[in-house]
């Protein structure tokens, strides 16, 4: 296998790809874990679980899907399946050693006013889970087509759900932003 002009083993290539995805999409994972886990310990636990699931699912990645869409799928599925205090199954598959997940400094959602961002996460956590998923994807600017790919439903259905979520969440986020 080749990575960045050098011949590497499949394992090294996988680690390099995993590392580059994390560099590029750390903000996405951080946002999703912050939107589902209520406190720092849970957030770290969920982040680890998401990273583990990404690592485990990597061999099945198909390049026809955008990396961000695929990562959204894995992260949302893991978050929806994740239970507070549930013991992790990370020991089953060895993973590369990871540094603490860096927050994406270029992401305006993370680099802007901390209190406002925290308030936004609190508001998202209060939403029903499906609405939280749609709100996150909507805030990240995913198209209806990408949302449909992540959720596994038709674009029409995404549109219908999106409008319903907008009606409910507009008021809440308006209060968060303007209070």
């Amino acid at each position, binding site marked *: 296998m080749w990575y960045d002009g050098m011949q590497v083993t499949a394992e090294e290539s996988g680690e390099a790809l995993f590392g580059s995805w994390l560099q590029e999409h750390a903000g996405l994972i951080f946002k999703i874990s912050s939107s589902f886990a209520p406190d720092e310990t849970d957030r770290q636990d969920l982040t680890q679980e998401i990273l583990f699931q990404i690592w485990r*699912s990597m061999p099945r990645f198909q390049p026809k899907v955008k990396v961000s869409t695929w990562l959204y*799928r894995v992260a949302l599925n893991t978050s929806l399946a994740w239970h507070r205090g549930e013991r992790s199954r990370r020991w089953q598959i060895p993973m590369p050693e990871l540094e603490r997940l860096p927050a994406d400094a270029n992401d305006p959602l993370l680099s802007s006013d901390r209190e406002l961002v925290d308030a936004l996460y609190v508001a998202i956590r209060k939403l029903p889970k*499906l609405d939280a998923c749609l709100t996150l994807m909507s805030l990240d600017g995913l198209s209806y087509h990408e949302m449909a790919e992540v959720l596994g439903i038709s674009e029409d259905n995404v549109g219908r759900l999106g409008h319903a979520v907008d009606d409910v969440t507009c008021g809440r986020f308006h209060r968060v932003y303007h209070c």
Partner: protein
Amino acid sequence: MLLMMLPVGGFTVFTIVDRLQHLKRRSRHDSSVKVCLESILAEINHRIWLCRNVVWWLILPVVFVADAGFRCYLAWGLRTATAAPIDAAGTIVPALVESGVTGVIVYYLFRWLIQKSFQPRKQELETLLRNLDG
């Protein structure tokens, strides 16, 4: 003792086979949210089914055999100690009935525990899937 070893051994083999099968059909987190939720729901339904089997084929037989054996042993011993004539209908039948009542209590207790453990999560997943389907 042999009567108790039978369900324990049988169920151990059953559980190992079931777990090996389960490894093949584990939910994949890179599939769509809908597919993933459906497989988690199927897994929860399977766990409920598994727990019910544990109750029917492991806990209830063991409880019934242990309880009935103990009661019969006590009743039999009492009759022997008082040198009264051994009356099977008067000794064993009440012991079996009492053990049956214990079995029913244990069954309902475990049924309640299974409901309490899995039902909220199951309902949550069903609601999520219903909302996704519109």
